[in-house]
């Protein structure tokens, strides 16, 4: 279960923002470069100082320890980051082989060297790395930014299943209007630090 509530959240030039993402809902955010989409996600993950509050199922961020909060409200950044030699060392709890396959990655990819992975492979592995923690909320910063069409569809399908099975809330930043139509019912444009809801379809 995960219901994300942003209660007058503001950080630098973004906000104050009032927004609810219900459990098992996917909400998309788009907006010009520099409008603060990434800043907003970072504030929700409590990686930047901010005013206001983000709540998960009514529990405020500040009442949990930072690691507890960030494991439940997982941020997946646009450019995946790696710190050890091998992919496996980044997966504390191993990896679900079924998920690897669904994203079009060979089962052996978990034993690859990070330096030999392509950007797209790394991006998908980074997504799985976050999913393996079983977060209730996913903050996705262009999760298919470096992927071809086939891989993009695979990621969308896996995230859709995860959302339904775990009743997870998804906040998804993307520039692609087609993708917004595919994955979300509600979408917002971030402009001048405010979220403006797009016309419902």
């Amino acid at each position, binding site marked *: 279960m995960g219901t994300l509530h942003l209660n007058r959240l503001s950080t630098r030039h973004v906000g104050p923002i009032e927004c609810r993402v219900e459990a098992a809902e996917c909400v998309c955010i788009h907006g010009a470069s520099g409008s603060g989409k990434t800043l907003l996600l970072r504030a929700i993950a409590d*990686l930047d*100082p901010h005013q206001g509050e983000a709540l998960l199922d009514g529990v405020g961020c500040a009442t949990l320890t930072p690691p507890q909060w960030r494991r439940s409200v997982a941020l997946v950044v646009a450019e995946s980051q790696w*710190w050890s030699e091998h992919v496996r060392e980044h997966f504390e709890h191993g990896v679900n082989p079924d998920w690897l396959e669904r994203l079009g990655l060979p089962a052996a990819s978990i034993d690859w060297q990070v330096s030999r992975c392509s950007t797209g492979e790394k991006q998908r592995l980074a997504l799985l790395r976050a999913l393996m923690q079983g977060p209730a909320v996913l903050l996705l910063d262009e999760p298919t930014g470096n992927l071809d069409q086939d891989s993009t569809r695979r990621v969308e399908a896996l995230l859709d299943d995860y959302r339904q099975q775990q009743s997870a809330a998804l906040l998804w930043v993307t520039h692609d209007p087609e993708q917004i139509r595919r994955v979300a019912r509600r979408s917002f444009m971030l402009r001048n630090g405010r979220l403006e809801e797009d016309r419902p379809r």
Partner: protein
Amino acid sequence: MNVLALSPLDLAIAASLVLALAGLSLRLQLGVERQLLFSAARSTLQLLLIGVVLKVLFENAQLPWVALMAGVMVTLAGREVMVRQKRRLVGGWGFGVGALSIFVSSFAVTVLALLVVIGSTPWYAPQYAIPLLGMILGNTMNGIALGLDRLTQDAAQKRQIIETRLALGQTWKHAISDCRREAIRVGMIPIINAMSAAGVISLPGMMTGQILAGTPPVEAVKYQILVMFLIAGGTGFGTVVAVSLAARRLFDERQRLRLDRLALPKN
């Protein structure tokens, strides 16, 4: 002791080497001649001054004077650590972290050596205390400056990695652990290298000085070994303390990486 006293002429001959080097720098357009001459003049002045200060101190060997001298040395070392940082902690922290860790390790090690190992009477006899502290301080300062510089540079460069690790629910300690380990290692490399090379490739300055001043080599060597170990202890513990304090300071109470607590590098 059969010391051959140096005349001003002897020193002038040595100084001509530095002048020649400055001339070469000018000729080759290396651009270091000003720095070279300035630092040579500075070191001459500082050493002459300390010679006078030590002479006075030796004649008034009382604890408050020795403590004052030690205090001044630690403060200057703390300042030196701070100015050597490319990205130092802002506020009083840049000076505080350096000075505190220098103080903790150098003082502890020096006092330990004076009380337990050397056993001079009184234990603070300046003839032992000040040179010993000076040697430990100089090396500890080096290690701490290197370690802190590496830590802050690394944290700034690897910001995205550290924040990804935080976002995956790692604690700040875990997220910065690689940078911290590397910074401590870098701080300790000089003394490890110095110990490996001592006696084979390089003859350490302290021992050489004693031998030049007429001490039997075996006695000088024993002191050198003592000093090496004290330096290693002081440098190692000081670097661990400094890097750990600075690493803590890089994160706030919500375990966010706060690079705004580092000054931007000049130029």
